[in-house]
């Protein structure tokens, strides 16, 4: 599957130079991927130790529960206050702004804006892939960045995904975890939302790798970041609402969702 990714970078570069469309390429790549997937999964089903270990009878459910699968939250009262603050911030400011933006800017454009910002944060992913020893990830990220920055018109079009180059979302928080750091404790920041002490340190470090930081005069960087936030929000209006609707305690639901999602990203 990884090989296919690389082969298709070359294929797409050739096909573009020949003036072909990329849609055919991506269908072929999909069929090929399924073939590879079949082998991989069959192998996996022979090799997997036991699914039953992960999920099972009552006693084991207890084990899972007591094995520290939840994040410590000594700052809960403060965190809850900031959760309420962010909740109001979302409904009173961010959501109306993003809704207005959504009515003015067509979806295709908003997807391009998202692609652009994601492509731009490539240095963060590259460095963290390398720091975690994920050299294939670093390589695939680099290919994706080169393809998107050129054929993808400076990152506006995400050609990399279309030709099966996987994204490897690694950040410094995950790198610290790979080096053995625990999450320490949960922090719900005003404005920025869910994090942990480790991930906060990680995010602070990642800022130095983010090209937006070096955007010159000090209004440009916050401006660009603001646009990114509004744009992202406009593409997922309703997500937070449905989390709240499904939850008995939205604060705990969000904290746990954040933590579980981070754990799965670290494992990847």
């Amino acid at each position, binding site marked *: 599957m990884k090989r296919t990714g690389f082969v298709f970078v070359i294929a797409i570069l050739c096909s573009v130079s020949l003036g072909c469309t990329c849609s055919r390429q991506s269908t072929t790549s999909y069929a090929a991927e399924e073939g590879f997937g079949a082998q991989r999964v069959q192998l996996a089903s022979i090799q997997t130790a036991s699914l039953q270990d992960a999920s099972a009878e009552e006693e084991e459910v207890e084990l899972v529960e007591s094995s520290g699968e939840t994040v410590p939250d000594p700052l809960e009262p403060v965190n809850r206050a900031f959760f309420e603050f962010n909740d109001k911030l979302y409904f009173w400011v961010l959501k109306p702004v993003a809704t207005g933006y959504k009515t003015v800017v067509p979806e295709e454009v908003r997807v391009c804006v998202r692609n652009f910002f994601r492509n731009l944060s490539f240095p963060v992913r590259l460095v963290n892939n390398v720091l975690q020893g994920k050299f294939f990830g670093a390589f695939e990220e680099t290919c994706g960045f080169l393809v998107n920055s050129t054929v993808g018109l400076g990152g506006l079009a995400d050609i990399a995904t279309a030709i099966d180059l996987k994204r490897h979302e690694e950040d410094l928080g995950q790198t610290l975890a790979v080096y053995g750091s625990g999450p320490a404790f949960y922090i719900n920041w005003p404005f920025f939302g869910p994090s942990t002490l480790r991930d906060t340190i990680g995010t602070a470090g990642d800022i130095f790798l983010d090209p937006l930081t070096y955007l010159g005069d000090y209004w440009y960087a916050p401006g660009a970041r603001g646009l990114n936030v509004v744009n992202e929000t406009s*593409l997922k209006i309703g997500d937070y609402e*449905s989390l709240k609707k499904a939850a008995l305690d939205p604060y705990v639901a969000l904290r746990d*969702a954040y933590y579980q*999602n981070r754990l*799965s990203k670290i494992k990847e």
Partner: protein
Amino acid sequence: MRRKGWTGIVLLALWAVCGFDPAWAGVPTEKIKETTDKILVIVSDPALKDPSQAAQRRERIRKTVDEMCDWEEMSRRALGRHWAKRNEQERKEFVRLFGQLLERTYVDKVEGYSGEKVNYTGERVDGDYAEVDVKIVTKEKTEIPVVYKLRNKDQRWWVYDIVVEGVSLVNNYRTQFSDIMAKSSFEGLMQKLREKSAE
């Protein structure tokens, strides 16, 4: 020469099998696919899109989801060690209320359907347990990885957990439930569930 021809045909046949009908797709994947396809038919049915049909539409989605999910197993896992301490009566009411909440959450999710694609990307089976990997591709080309966890009971596969982007639904509720019970009691939790279902 003849031999080469045969090899070619065999390879072609193999490729066709791998490429068009994933050879790994076993019974658990079929179970998920069957339910998903049924739901896609319901949510794409223009006759049911009319607001006057909303109740009927929800009811039909609900019934289809019921055929896939084992609400009792989900409840047991979400209560964790507290399950053992509850009597038959309490368990029954809990399964009913929590089942309703899960069902409603699921229906809300699929009701907002707007052309997402569902790809089946893998399956792992180990005795009576299985996991089915699914990628939901949204209109904006965002991929959402979902893992269905199934358990074989009475010769049928039942879903007992759904993991979306690494977040297990059952674990998420278990964290909430144990937090609520630590601060109040099982009765307090039931009260919250009742309020939620009355919303």
